[in-house]
Protein backbone atom coordinates (compact mmCIF):
# COMPACT_ATOMS: atom_id res chain seq x y z
CA UNK A 1 0.00 0.00 0.00
CA UNK A 2 1.25 3.42 -0.83
CA UNK A 3 1.71 5.80 2.03
CA UNK A 4 -0.98 8.52 1.88
CA UNK A 5 1.62 11.29 1.93
CA UNK A 6 3.52 9.68 -0.88
CA UNK A 7 0.35 9.33 -2.92
CA UNK A 8 -0.42 12.92 -2.25
CA UNK A 9 3.05 13.93 -3.32
CA UNK A 10 2.66 11.93 -6.51
CA UNK A 11 -0.61 13.63 -7.24
CA UNK A 12 0.93 17.04 -6.72
CA UNK A 13 3.79 16.10 -8.96
CA UNK A 14 1.41 14.93 -11.64
CA UNK A 15 -0.59 18.13 -11.40
CA UNK A 16 2.55 20.22 -11.67
CA UNK A 17 3.74 18.20 -14.64
CA UNK A 18 0.46 18.49 -16.49
CA UNK A 19 0.36 22.19 -15.78
CA UNK A 20 3.83 22.56 -17.30
CA UNK A 21 2.80 20.45 -20.26
CA UNK A 22 -0.35 22.44 -20.79
CA UNK A 23 1.56 25.68 -20.54
CA UNK A 24 4.06 24.32 -23.01
CA UNK A 25 1.41 23.29 -25.48
CA UNK A 26 -0.42 26.60 -25.29
CA UNK A 27 2.89 28.45 -25.49
CA UNK A 28 3.61 26.81 -28.82
CA UNK A 29 0.04 26.90 -30.02
CA UNK A 30 -0.81 30.49 -29.22
CA UNK A 31 1.30 32.54 -31.63
CA UNK A 32 0.22 30.51 -34.63
CA UNK A 33 -3.44 30.93 -33.74
CA UNK A 34 -3.48 34.52 -32.56
CA UNK A 35 -0.73 36.05 -34.70
CA UNK A 36 -0.02 35.43 -38.34
CA UNK A 37 3.43 35.72 -39.87
CA UNK A 38 5.18 36.03 -43.20
CA UNK A 39 8.58 34.74 -44.22
CA UNK A 40 10.92 37.15 -45.96
CA UNK A 41 14.30 36.24 -47.44
CA UNK A 42 16.96 38.94 -47.09
CA UNK A 43 20.72 39.34 -46.70
CA UNK A 44 22.92 38.99 -43.64
CA UNK A 45 24.90 41.57 -41.70
CA UNK A 46 24.06 45.27 -41.69
CA UNK A 47 21.79 44.82 -44.74
CA UNK A 48 19.48 42.43 -42.91
CA UNK A 49 19.53 44.66 -39.82
CA UNK A 50 18.51 47.65 -41.93
CA UNK A 51 15.66 45.77 -43.65
CA UNK A 52 14.39 44.73 -40.24
CA UNK A 53 14.49 48.23 -38.75
CA UNK A 54 13.28 50.12 -41.82
CA UNK A 55 10.66 47.78 -43.26
CA UNK A 56 9.81 44.77 -41.07
CA UNK A 57 9.30 46.60 -37.78
CA UNK A 58 7.00 49.34 -39.17
CA UNK A 59 5.11 46.61 -41.04
CA UNK A 60 4.57 44.52 -37.89
CA UNK A 61 3.56 47.63 -35.96
CA UNK A 62 0.92 48.52 -38.54
CA UNK A 63 -0.48 45.05 -39.22
CA UNK A 64 0.41 42.87 -36.23
CA UNK A 65 1.90 40.33 -38.64
CA UNK A 66 5.20 38.93 -37.54
CA UNK A 67 8.11 38.90 -40.03
CA UNK A 68 10.31 35.82 -39.93
CA UNK A 69 13.58 36.51 -41.75
CA UNK A 70 15.42 33.88 -43.77
CA UNK A 71 18.96 35.07 -44.15
CA UNK A 72 20.98 34.30 -47.27
CA UNK A 73 22.66 35.86 -50.28
CA UNK A 74 20.61 36.42 -53.43
CA UNK A 75 22.00 33.25 -55.00
CA UNK A 76 21.08 31.15 -51.98
CA UNK A 77 17.58 32.63 -51.91
CA UNK A 78 17.10 31.79 -55.58
CA UNK A 79 18.23 28.23 -54.90
CA UNK A 80 15.69 27.99 -52.04
CA UNK A 81 12.90 29.32 -54.24
CA UNK A 82 13.69 26.78 -56.94
CA UNK A 83 13.77 23.98 -54.38
CA UNK A 84 10.39 24.86 -52.83
CA UNK A 85 8.77 25.76 -56.13
CA UNK A 86 5.84 23.36 -55.55
CA UNK A 87 5.14 24.33 -51.94
CA UNK A 88 6.85 27.59 -51.09
CA UNK A 89 7.28 28.70 -47.47
CA UNK A 90 8.73 32.09 -48.39
CA UNK A 91 6.37 34.98 -49.11
CA UNK A 92 8.70 37.81 -50.10
CA UNK A 93 12.31 37.65 -51.30
CA UNK A 94 14.95 40.34 -51.54
CA UNK A 95 17.37 39.60 -54.37
CA UNK A 96 19.92 41.71 -56.23
CA UNK A 97 19.66 42.81 -59.82
CA UNK A 98 20.91 40.01 -62.06
CA UNK A 99 19.70 37.23 -59.80
CA UNK A 100 16.26 38.86 -60.01
CA UNK A 101 16.13 38.23 -63.77
CA UNK A 102 17.26 34.63 -63.28
CA UNK A 103 14.47 34.11 -60.74
CA UNK A 104 11.98 35.52 -63.21
CA UNK A 105 13.22 33.15 -65.91
CA UNK A 106 13.03 30.24 -63.45
CA UNK A 107 9.31 30.92 -62.98
CA UNK A 108 9.39 31.26 -59.18
CA UNK A 109 8.00 34.80 -59.05
CA UNK A 110 4.44 36.07 -58.96
CA UNK A 111 3.33 39.25 -60.71
CA UNK A 112 3.16 42.25 -58.37
CA UNK A 113 -0.32 43.71 -58.84
CA UNK A 114 -0.54 47.52 -58.51
CA UNK A 115 -4.03 47.07 -57.07
CA UNK A 116 -2.59 45.10 -54.13
CA UNK A 117 0.46 47.35 -53.77
CA UNK A 118 -0.80 50.94 -54.14
CA UNK A 119 2.59 52.48 -53.34
CA UNK A 120 3.92 51.00 -56.57
CA UNK A 121 2.80 54.23 -58.22
CA UNK A 122 5.34 56.14 -56.08
CA UNK A 123 8.32 54.05 -57.23
CA UNK A 124 10.82 55.47 -59.71
CA UNK A 125 9.82 54.26 -63.19
CA UNK A 126 13.32 52.74 -63.59
CA UNK A 127 12.78 50.63 -60.45
CA UNK A 128 9.72 48.79 -61.74
CA UNK A 129 10.82 45.70 -63.62
CA UNK A 130 8.49 44.08 -66.12
CA UNK A 131 8.54 40.95 -68.19
CA UNK A 132 5.76 39.88 -70.54
CA UNK A 133 3.68 42.84 -69.44
CA UNK A 134 3.61 42.05 -65.71
CA UNK A 135 5.75 43.39 -62.89
CA UNK A 136 8.12 40.75 -61.46
CA UNK A 137 10.29 42.96 -59.23
CA UNK A 138 10.45 46.40 -57.72
CA UNK A 139 13.63 48.16 -56.61
CA UNK A 140 14.23 48.76 -52.93
CA UNK A 141 17.30 50.96 -53.28
CA UNK A 142 20.31 51.49 -55.56
CA UNK A 143 23.99 51.01 -54.82
CA UNK A 144 26.92 51.77 -57.06
CA UNK A 145 30.50 50.71 -57.68
CA UNK A 146 32.48 53.95 -57.54
CA UNK A 147 36.04 55.18 -57.18
CA UNK A 148 37.31 54.63 -53.67
CA UNK A 149 40.62 55.89 -52.36
CA UNK A 150 42.75 56.37 -49.28
CA UNK A 151 42.45 60.07 -48.46
CA UNK A 152 45.77 60.11 -46.61
CA UNK A 153 47.86 58.58 -49.40
CA UNK A 154 46.01 59.96 -52.42
CA UNK A 155 46.46 63.72 -52.22
CA UNK A 156 44.41 64.87 -55.20
CA UNK A 157 41.04 63.13 -55.33
CA UNK A 158 40.72 61.05 -58.51
CA UNK A 159 38.21 62.23 -61.11
CA UNK A 160 38.37 59.47 -63.72
CA UNK A 161 38.53 55.70 -63.85
CA UNK A 162 41.63 56.15 -66.03
CA UNK A 163 43.44 57.56 -62.97
CA UNK A 164 43.82 53.96 -61.76
CA UNK A 165 46.55 53.55 -64.42
CA UNK A 166 48.68 56.37 -62.96
CA UNK A 167 52.20 55.17 -62.14
CA UNK A 168 51.99 56.27 -58.49
CA UNK A 169 49.23 53.72 -57.86
CA UNK A 170 51.15 50.73 -59.23
CA UNK A 171 50.52 47.58 -57.20
CA UNK A 172 48.00 49.44 -55.02
CA UNK A 173 44.82 49.17 -57.09
CA UNK A 174 41.87 46.85 -56.56
CA UNK A 175 38.90 46.06 -58.82
CA UNK A 176 36.27 43.30 -58.58
CA UNK A 177 36.83 39.83 -60.02
CA UNK A 178 34.03 37.93 -61.81
CA UNK A 179 33.42 35.96 -58.59
CA UNK A 180 31.88 39.21 -57.33
CA UNK A 181 28.45 40.17 -58.64
CA UNK A 182 29.90 43.45 -59.94
CA UNK A 183 32.89 41.86 -61.71
CA UNK A 184 31.34 41.01 -65.07
CA UNK A 185 29.23 44.21 -65.37
CA UNK A 186 32.30 46.30 -64.45
CA UNK A 187 34.18 44.92 -67.46
CA UNK A 188 31.19 45.77 -69.67
CA UNK A 189 31.02 49.23 -68.10
CA UNK A 190 34.70 49.90 -68.89
CA UNK A 191 34.19 48.56 -72.41
CA UNK A 192 31.38 51.06 -73.00
CA UNK A 193 33.34 53.86 -71.28
CA UNK A 194 36.31 53.42 -73.64
CA UNK A 195 34.01 53.33 -76.64
CA UNK A 196 34.87 49.77 -77.61
CA UNK A 197 32.22 47.82 -79.53
CA UNK A 198 29.81 45.96 -77.20
CA UNK A 199 30.49 42.55 -78.70
CA UNK A 200 34.29 42.78 -78.67
CA UNK A 201 36.02 42.99 -75.31
CA UNK A 202 39.54 42.21 -76.52
CA UNK A 203 40.74 45.83 -76.34
CA UNK A 204 39.27 46.21 -72.86
CA UNK A 205 41.03 43.10 -71.61
CA UNK A 206 44.30 44.25 -73.20
CA UNK A 207 44.00 47.52 -71.29
CA UNK A 208 43.02 45.77 -68.05
CA UNK A 209 46.08 43.59 -68.42
CA UNK A 210 48.27 46.69 -68.10
CA UNK A 211 46.62 47.69 -64.81
CA UNK A 212 49.03 46.93 -61.96
CA UNK A 213 46.72 45.71 -59.22
CA UNK A 214 47.32 44.71 -55.62
CA UNK A 215 44.40 42.31 -55.82
CA UNK A 216 41.12 41.55 -57.55
CA UNK A 217 38.46 41.33 -54.84
CA UNK A 218 35.83 38.60 -54.90
CA UNK A 219 33.77 39.81 -51.95
CA UNK A 220 32.85 43.21 -50.65
CA UNK A 221 34.47 42.17 -47.37
CA UNK A 222 37.78 41.46 -49.11
CA UNK A 223 37.66 44.94 -50.68
CA UNK A 224 36.98 46.60 -47.33
CA UNK A 225 39.81 44.60 -45.81
CA UNK A 226 42.23 45.71 -48.54
CA UNK A 227 41.40 49.42 -48.12
CA UNK A 228 41.52 49.11 -44.36
CA UNK A 229 44.97 47.49 -44.28
CA UNK A 230 46.40 49.85 -46.90
CA UNK A 231 46.99 46.97 -49.31
CA UNK A 232 44.86 48.93 -51.77
CA UNK A 233 45.09 52.72 -51.95
CA UNK A 234 42.66 53.25 -54.79
CA UNK A 235 40.19 51.29 -56.84
CA UNK A 236 36.57 50.29 -57.03
CA UNK A 237 34.24 49.64 -54.12
CA UNK A 238 30.52 49.81 -53.40
CA UNK A 239 29.29 53.09 -51.94
CA UNK A 240 27.70 51.08 -49.12
CA UNK A 241 31.01 49.44 -48.12
CA UNK A 242 33.23 52.47 -48.71
CA UNK A 243 31.12 54.85 -46.60
CA UNK A 244 30.82 52.22 -43.92
CA UNK A 245 34.63 52.29 -43.62
CA UNK A 246 34.69 56.09 -43.64
CA UNK A 247 32.01 56.20 -40.93
CA UNK A 248 34.25 54.02 -38.78
CA UNK A 249 36.87 56.77 -38.91
CA UNK A 250 39.15 55.32 -41.60
CA UNK A 251 40.69 57.70 -44.17
CA UNK A 252 38.55 56.46 -47.05
CA UNK A 253 36.89 58.60 -49.70
CA UNK A 254 34.31 57.64 -52.32
CA UNK A 255 33.66 59.58 -55.47
CA UNK A 256 31.61 59.33 -58.63
CA UNK A 257 34.08 59.93 -61.49
CA UNK A 258 33.23 61.93 -64.58
CA UNK A 259 32.50 58.79 -66.62
CA UNK A 260 29.83 57.79 -64.10
CA UNK A 261 29.37 54.63 -62.11
CA UNK A 262 27.92 51.23 -62.72
CA UNK A 263 25.04 50.56 -60.35
CA UNK A 264 22.42 48.01 -59.49
CA UNK A 265 19.80 47.52 -56.83
CA UNK A 266 18.33 45.27 -54.18
CA UNK A 267 14.85 44.26 -55.29
CA UNK A 268 11.66 42.99 -53.74
CA UNK A 269 9.88 39.98 -55.18
CA UNK A 270 6.56 38.34 -54.48
CA UNK A 271 7.00 34.58 -54.37
CA UNK A 272 4.74 32.56 -56.65
CA UNK A 273 2.04 30.72 -54.62
CA UNK A 274 3.16 32.55 -51.48
CA UNK A 275 1.28 31.13 -48.47
CA UNK A 276 0.36 34.62 -47.21
CA UNK A 277 -0.07 36.61 -50.38
CA UNK A 278 -2.15 39.48 -48.99
CA UNK A 279 0.30 40.15 -46.14
CA UNK A 280 3.22 39.77 -48.54
CA UNK A 281 1.74 42.49 -50.74
CA UNK A 282 1.32 44.74 -47.73
CA UNK A 283 4.96 44.12 -46.80
CA UNK A 284 6.08 45.24 -50.27
CA UNK A 285 3.76 48.22 -49.97
CA UNK A 286 5.40 49.18 -46.66
CA UNK A 287 8.85 48.88 -48.22
CA UNK A 288 7.80 51.39 -50.91
CA UNK A 289 6.89 54.16 -48.46
CA UNK A 290 9.13 57.24 -48.43
CA UNK A 291 9.79 56.59 -44.72
CA UNK A 292 11.19 53.10 -45.33
CA UNK A 293 13.21 54.34 -48.29
CA UNK A 294 14.68 57.25 -46.31
CA UNK A 295 15.51 54.89 -43.45
CA UNK A 296 17.43 52.57 -45.83
CA UNK A 297 19.24 55.59 -47.27
CA UNK A 298 20.33 56.61 -43.79
CA UNK A 299 21.40 53.15 -42.68
CA UNK A 300 23.02 51.75 -45.85
CA UNK A 301 23.24 54.79 -48.18
CA UNK A 302 20.98 52.97 -50.61
CA UNK A 303 19.73 55.40 -53.24
CA UNK A 304 15.94 55.67 -52.84
CA UNK A 305 13.89 53.92 -55.52
CA UNK A 306 10.84 55.82 -54.33
CA UNK A 307 10.05 59.33 -55.54
CA UNK A 308 10.06 62.33 -53.25
CA UNK A 309 12.33 60.99 -50.52
CA UNK A 310 14.34 63.63 -48.69
CA UNK A 311 17.39 62.85 -46.59
CA UNK A 312 19.93 64.97 -44.71
CA UNK A 313 22.76 66.53 -46.78
CA UNK A 314 25.26 64.33 -44.94
CA UNK A 315 23.44 61.21 -46.14
CA UNK A 316 22.75 62.64 -49.58
CA UNK A 317 26.43 62.99 -50.52
CA UNK A 318 26.96 59.31 -49.69
CA UNK A 319 24.22 58.03 -51.98
CA UNK A 320 25.29 55.96 -55.00
CA UNK A 321 25.06 58.86 -57.47
CA UNK A 322 27.13 61.28 -55.36
CA UNK A 323 26.53 64.98 -54.72
CA UNK A 324 23.68 66.46 -56.77
CA UNK A 325 22.97 63.28 -58.68
CA UNK A 326 19.93 61.15 -59.15
CA UNK A 327 19.02 57.76 -60.53
CA UNK A 328 19.48 59.28 -64.02
CA UNK A 329 23.25 59.44 -63.40
CA UNK A 330 23.58 55.73 -62.77
CA UNK A 331 24.64 53.39 -65.53
CA UNK A 332 22.14 50.61 -65.11
CA UNK A 333 22.95 47.86 -67.53
CA UNK A 334 20.42 45.42 -68.84
CA UNK A 335 21.06 42.32 -66.78
CA UNK A 336 19.86 40.10 -69.62
CA UNK A 337 22.91 41.27 -71.63
CA UNK A 338 25.23 40.75 -68.67
CA UNK A 339 23.91 37.26 -67.94
CA UNK A 340 24.21 36.34 -71.62
CA UNK A 341 27.92 37.29 -71.73
CA UNK A 342 28.77 36.17 -68.19
CA UNK A 343 30.34 32.80 -69.04
CA UNK A 344 32.47 34.24 -71.86
CA UNK A 345 33.69 37.23 -69.82
CA UNK A 346 34.48 35.03 -66.80
CA UNK A 347 36.44 32.68 -69.04
CA UNK A 348 38.35 35.51 -70.72
CA UNK A 349 39.13 37.03 -67.33
CA UNK A 350 40.50 33.69 -66.05
CA UNK A 351 42.78 33.35 -69.05
CA UNK A 352 43.92 36.96 -69.36
CA UNK A 353 44.10 38.27 -65.81
CA UNK A 354 43.79 35.59 -63.15
CA UNK A 355 47.20 34.06 -63.81
CA UNK A 356 50.67 35.39 -63.26
Amino acid sequence: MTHPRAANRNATRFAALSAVLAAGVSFFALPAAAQSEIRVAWYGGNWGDAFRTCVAEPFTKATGVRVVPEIGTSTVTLAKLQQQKDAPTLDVAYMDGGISELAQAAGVLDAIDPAGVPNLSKAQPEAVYKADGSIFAVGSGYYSLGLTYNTKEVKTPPTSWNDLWKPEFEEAVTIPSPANSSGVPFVMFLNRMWGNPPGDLSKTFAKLKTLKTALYFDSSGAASNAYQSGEALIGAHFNVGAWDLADKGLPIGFTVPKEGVWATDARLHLVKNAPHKADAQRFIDTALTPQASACLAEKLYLGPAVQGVSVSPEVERKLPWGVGGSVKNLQLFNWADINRDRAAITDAWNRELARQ
Partner: protein
Amino acid sequence: MNRALPLLAAPVAFFVAFFAVPMIVVVSSSLMAGGVPSLGNYARVLLDQYHWDVLAATFRIAGLTTAACALLGYPLAYYLVRVVKSRALRRTCVILLVLPLFTSNIVRSFGWMVLLGRNGLVNDALVGAGILDRPMRFLGTELGIVIGLVYILLPFIVLAVGNALAAVDPALEDASSDLGATPFDTFRTVTFPLCLPGLMSGIVMVFTLAVSAYVTPALLSGGKITVFPMLIFQQYSTVFDVNYGGALSMTLLVMTLVLVGLAGWIGNAGADAKGRAAR
Protein backbone atom coordinates in the same frame (compact mmCIF):
# COMPACT_ATOMS: atom_id res chain seq x y z
CA MET B 1 25.86 -10.96 -37.42
CA ASN B 2 22.26 -10.08 -38.16
CA ARG B 3 22.10 -7.92 -35.09
CA ALA B 4 24.79 -5.70 -36.57
CA LEU B 5 22.62 -4.83 -39.56
CA PRO B 6 20.39 -2.23 -37.85
CA LEU B 7 23.53 -0.66 -36.40
CA LEU B 8 24.96 -0.45 -39.88
CA ALA B 9 21.82 1.12 -41.30
CA ALA B 10 22.44 4.58 -39.82
CA PRO B 11 25.97 5.08 -41.20
CA VAL B 12 24.95 3.60 -44.55
CA ALA B 13 21.93 5.93 -44.77
CA PHE B 14 24.18 8.86 -43.86
CA PHE B 15 26.72 7.85 -46.49
CA VAL B 16 24.06 7.46 -49.16
CA ALA B 17 22.31 10.75 -48.35
CA PHE B 18 25.37 12.96 -47.96
CA PHE B 19 27.92 11.35 -50.23
CA ALA B 20 26.48 8.95 -52.79
CA VAL B 21 23.43 11.00 -53.82
CA PRO B 22 25.25 14.35 -54.24
CA MET B 23 28.01 12.54 -56.11
CA ILE B 24 25.51 10.94 -58.50
CA VAL B 25 23.89 14.35 -59.04
CA VAL B 26 27.25 15.92 -59.93
CA VAL B 27 28.29 13.05 -62.21
CA SER B 28 24.97 12.94 -64.05
CA SER B 29 24.90 16.73 -64.53
CA SER B 30 28.46 16.63 -65.87
CA LEU B 31 27.31 14.19 -68.55
CA MET B 32 24.62 16.53 -69.84
CA ALA B 33 25.09 19.42 -72.25
CA GLY B 34 22.22 21.49 -73.58
CA GLY B 35 19.71 19.02 -72.15
CA VAL B 36 21.06 15.95 -73.93
CA PRO B 37 23.60 13.34 -72.74
CA SER B 38 27.05 14.30 -73.94
CA LEU B 39 30.74 14.09 -73.19
CA GLY B 40 31.13 17.66 -74.45
CA ASN B 41 31.83 19.12 -71.00
CA TYR B 42 34.74 16.73 -70.50
CA ALA B 43 36.09 17.50 -73.95
CA ARG B 44 35.90 21.20 -73.10
CA VAL B 45 37.88 20.60 -69.90
CA LEU B 46 40.43 18.06 -71.08
CA LEU B 47 41.23 19.36 -74.59
CA ASP B 48 42.13 22.82 -73.32
CA GLN B 49 45.71 23.52 -72.27
CA TYR B 50 44.45 26.23 -69.89
CA HIS B 51 42.83 23.65 -67.59
CA TRP B 52 46.01 21.59 -67.51
CA ASP B 53 47.97 24.70 -66.51
CA VAL B 54 45.54 25.41 -63.68
CA LEU B 55 45.65 21.76 -62.62
CA ALA B 56 49.46 21.90 -62.56
CA ALA B 57 49.40 25.05 -60.41
CA THR B 58 46.88 23.40 -58.06
CA PHE B 59 49.00 20.27 -57.62
CA ARG B 60 52.20 22.32 -57.30
CA ILE B 61 50.70 24.39 -54.47
CA ALA B 62 49.26 21.28 -52.79
CA GLY B 63 52.57 19.43 -53.17
CA LEU B 64 54.60 22.25 -51.65
CA THR B 65 52.07 22.57 -48.83
CA THR B 66 52.27 18.84 -48.12
CA ALA B 67 56.08 18.85 -48.15
CA ALA B 68 56.22 21.84 -45.80
CA CYS B 69 53.62 20.27 -43.48
CA ALA B 70 55.59 17.00 -43.35
CA LEU B 71 58.92 18.74 -42.68
CA LEU B 72 57.44 20.95 -39.96
CA GLY B 73 54.91 18.49 -38.61
CA TYR B 74 57.14 15.46 -38.11
CA PRO B 75 59.63 17.12 -35.73
CA LEU B 76 56.74 18.83 -33.95
CA ALA B 77 54.96 15.49 -33.41
CA TYR B 78 58.24 13.90 -32.27
CA TYR B 79 58.78 16.72 -29.82
CA LEU B 80 55.24 16.46 -28.43
CA VAL B 81 55.29 12.68 -28.02
CA ARG B 82 58.92 11.99 -27.11
CA VAL B 83 60.48 15.14 -25.65
CA VAL B 84 57.68 16.71 -23.61
CA LYS B 85 57.60 14.66 -20.41
CA SER B 86 54.88 16.47 -18.48
CA ARG B 87 51.43 15.20 -19.28
CA ALA B 88 49.77 18.56 -18.59
CA LEU B 89 52.22 20.38 -20.85
CA ARG B 90 51.68 17.86 -23.66
CA ARG B 91 47.95 18.24 -23.34
CA THR B 92 48.26 22.03 -23.45
CA CYS B 93 50.43 21.79 -26.58
CA VAL B 94 47.90 19.52 -28.33
CA ILE B 95 45.06 21.88 -27.41
CA LEU B 96 47.06 24.84 -28.76
CA LEU B 97 47.68 22.87 -31.93
CA VAL B 98 44.03 21.94 -32.45
CA LEU B 99 42.49 25.21 -31.26
CA PRO B 100 42.79 27.04 -34.62
CA LEU B 101 40.66 24.28 -36.19
CA PHE B 102 37.71 25.65 -34.21
CA THR B 103 37.86 28.97 -36.05
CA SER B 104 36.51 29.38 -39.55
CA ASN B 105 38.92 29.20 -42.48
CA ILE B 106 37.63 32.54 -43.70
CA VAL B 107 38.57 34.36 -40.51
CA ARG B 108 42.01 32.75 -40.43
CA SER B 109 42.68 33.54 -44.07
CA PHE B 110 41.64 37.16 -43.55
CA GLY B 111 44.11 37.16 -40.66
CA TRP B 112 46.89 36.06 -43.00
CA MET B 113 45.87 38.74 -45.50
CA VAL B 114 46.53 41.32 -42.81
CA LEU B 115 49.77 39.68 -41.66
CA LEU B 116 51.20 39.15 -45.16
CA GLY B 117 50.16 42.51 -46.61
CA ARG B 118 52.60 45.14 -47.80
CA ASN B 119 52.21 46.96 -44.50
CA GLY B 120 51.61 43.76 -42.55
CA LEU B 121 53.42 42.38 -39.54
CA VAL B 122 55.57 39.94 -41.53
CA ASN B 123 56.89 42.60 -43.91
CA ASP B 124 57.36 45.11 -41.08
CA ALA B 125 59.44 42.55 -39.20
CA LEU B 126 61.52 41.53 -42.23
CA VAL B 127 62.21 45.14 -43.23
CA GLY B 128 62.78 46.19 -39.61
CA ALA B 129 65.31 43.41 -39.08
CA GLY B 130 67.15 44.51 -42.22
CA ILE B 131 66.49 41.22 -44.04
CA LEU B 132 64.57 43.02 -46.79
CA ASP B 133 65.09 46.51 -48.20
CA ARG B 134 61.45 46.99 -49.12
CA PRO B 135 58.24 45.04 -48.48
CA MET B 136 58.02 41.74 -50.30
CA ARG B 137 54.89 40.68 -52.14
CA PHE B 138 53.23 37.67 -50.51
CA LEU B 139 49.58 38.20 -51.47
CA GLY B 140 48.90 37.10 -55.00
CA THR B 141 51.85 34.69 -55.03
CA GLU B 142 51.96 30.91 -54.70
CA LEU B 143 54.18 31.37 -51.63
CA GLY B 144 51.43 33.32 -49.88
CA ILE B 145 48.87 30.60 -50.59
CA VAL B 146 51.27 27.90 -49.39
CA ILE B 147 51.89 29.80 -46.12
CA GLY B 148 48.16 30.07 -45.47
CA LEU B 149 47.51 26.41 -46.31
CA VAL B 150 50.41 25.10 -44.21
CA TYR B 151 49.07 27.00 -41.21
CA ILE B 152 45.61 25.51 -41.66
CA LEU B 153 46.65 21.93 -42.47
CA LEU B 154 49.64 21.42 -40.14
CA PRO B 155 47.55 19.96 -37.26
CA PHE B 156 46.37 17.08 -39.44
CA ILE B 157 49.88 15.76 -40.02
CA VAL B 158 51.01 16.34 -36.43
CA LEU B 159 48.05 14.38 -35.08
CA ALA B 160 48.53 11.51 -37.57
CA VAL B 161 52.28 11.21 -36.91
CA GLY B 162 51.87 11.75 -33.16
CA ASN B 163 49.41 8.87 -32.89
CA ALA B 164 51.75 6.58 -34.84
CA LEU B 165 54.74 7.61 -32.74
CA ALA B 166 52.88 7.02 -29.49
CA ALA B 167 51.98 3.52 -30.67
CA VAL B 168 55.63 2.52 -31.23
CA ASP B 169 56.63 0.03 -28.53
CA PRO B 170 59.62 1.54 -26.62
CA ALA B 171 60.93 -2.03 -26.09
CA LEU B 172 61.79 -2.19 -29.79
CA GLU B 173 63.93 0.93 -29.54
CA ASP B 174 65.54 -0.35 -26.33
CA ALA B 175 66.37 -3.61 -28.07
CA SER B 176 67.89 -1.69 -30.95
CA SER B 177 70.21 0.30 -28.70
CA ASP B 178 71.04 -2.81 -26.62
CA LEU B 179 72.24 -4.39 -29.83
CA GLY B 180 74.59 -1.46 -30.33
CA ALA B 181 72.71 0.87 -32.70
CA THR B 182 73.31 4.59 -32.29
CA PRO B 183 70.25 6.73 -31.48
CA PHE B 184 70.24 7.97 -35.09
CA ASP B 185 70.41 4.41 -36.47
CA THR B 186 67.58 3.38 -34.14
CA PHE B 187 65.49 6.25 -35.42
CA ARG B 188 66.34 5.53 -39.05
CA THR B 189 65.79 1.77 -38.99
CA VAL B 190 63.20 1.26 -36.23
CA THR B 191 61.22 4.34 -35.19
CA PHE B 192 60.81 6.07 -38.55
CA PRO B 193 59.71 3.00 -40.55
CA LEU B 194 57.22 2.11 -37.80
CA CYS B 195 55.46 5.46 -37.96
CA LEU B 196 55.65 5.68 -41.75
CA PRO B 197 52.00 4.58 -42.17
CA GLY B 198 50.96 7.45 -39.87
CA LEU B 199 53.05 9.91 -41.87
CA MET B 200 51.62 8.59 -45.14
CA SER B 201 48.02 8.94 -43.95
CA GLY B 202 48.81 12.48 -42.77
CA ILE B 203 50.36 13.29 -46.14
CA VAL B 204 47.36 11.96 -48.07
CA MET B 205 45.00 13.92 -45.83
CA VAL B 206 46.91 17.19 -46.18
CA PHE B 207 47.38 16.77 -49.94
CA THR B 208 43.70 16.09 -50.66
CA LEU B 209 42.60 18.95 -48.41
CA ALA B 210 45.10 21.30 -50.07
CA VAL B 211 43.97 20.30 -53.56
CA SER B 212 40.32 20.96 -52.71
CA ALA B 213 40.87 24.13 -50.65
CA TYR B 214 38.86 27.07 -51.90
CA VAL B 215 38.66 29.82 -49.28
CA THR B 216 42.37 30.17 -48.49
CA PRO B 217 43.59 30.28 -52.12
CA ALA B 218 40.70 32.56 -53.12
CA LEU B 219 41.59 35.12 -50.46
CA LEU B 220 45.38 34.87 -50.48
CA SER B 221 45.70 34.72 -54.27
CA GLY B 222 44.10 38.15 -54.50
CA GLY B 223 42.40 36.79 -57.61
CA LYS B 224 45.74 36.66 -59.44
CA ILE B 225 46.32 32.93 -59.28
CA THR B 226 43.63 30.43 -60.15
CA VAL B 227 43.39 26.99 -58.59
CA PHE B 228 40.94 24.36 -59.75
CA PRO B 229 38.41 24.72 -56.91
CA MET B 230 38.08 28.41 -57.81
CA LEU B 231 37.06 27.46 -61.37
CA ILE B 232 34.49 25.03 -59.98
CA PHE B 233 33.09 27.60 -57.54
CA GLN B 234 32.78 30.18 -60.33
CA GLN B 235 30.66 27.84 -62.45
CA TYR B 236 28.35 26.88 -59.58
CA SER B 237 27.99 30.27 -57.91
CA THR B 238 28.14 32.94 -60.59
CA VAL B 239 27.96 31.41 -64.06
CA PHE B 240 25.36 28.77 -63.02
CA ASP B 241 26.67 26.20 -65.50
CA VAL B 242 26.37 23.09 -63.34
CA ASN B 243 27.17 20.82 -66.29
CA TYR B 244 30.57 22.33 -67.01
CA GLY B 245 31.12 22.81 -63.25
CA GLY B 246 30.33 19.15 -62.67
CA ALA B 247 32.84 18.08 -65.32
CA LEU B 248 35.48 20.31 -63.67
CA SER B 249 34.70 18.72 -60.28
CA MET B 250 34.98 15.18 -61.56
CA THR B 251 38.21 15.98 -63.39
CA LEU B 252 39.80 17.29 -60.17
CA LEU B 253 38.51 14.31 -58.18
CA VAL B 254 39.80 11.70 -60.63
CA MET B 255 43.18 13.42 -61.09
CA THR B 256 43.66 13.66 -57.33
CA LEU B 257 42.72 10.00 -56.80
CA VAL B 258 45.13 8.97 -59.56
CA LEU B 259 47.92 10.98 -57.99
CA VAL B 260 47.27 9.69 -54.47
CA GLY B 261 46.99 6.12 -55.78
CA LEU B 262 50.23 6.52 -57.71
CA ALA B 263 52.02 7.83 -54.61
CA GLY B 264 50.72 4.88 -52.58
CA TRP B 265 51.81 2.41 -55.27
CA ILE B 266 55.30 3.91 -55.49
CA GLY B 267 55.52 3.90 -51.69
CA ASN B 268 54.52 0.22 -51.53
CA ALA B 269 56.87 -0.76 -54.33
CA GLY B 270 59.70 1.06 -52.55
CA ALA B 271 58.91 -0.64 -49.25
CA ASP B 272 58.80 -4.07 -50.93
CA ALA B 273 62.14 -3.52 -52.63
CA LYS B 274 63.66 -2.41 -49.34
CA GLY B 275 62.17 -5.42 -47.57
CA ARG B 276 63.69 -7.78 -50.15
CA ALA B 277 67.06 -6.03 -49.92
CA ALA B 278 67.05 -6.35 -46.13
CA ARG B 279 66.35 -10.06 -46.39
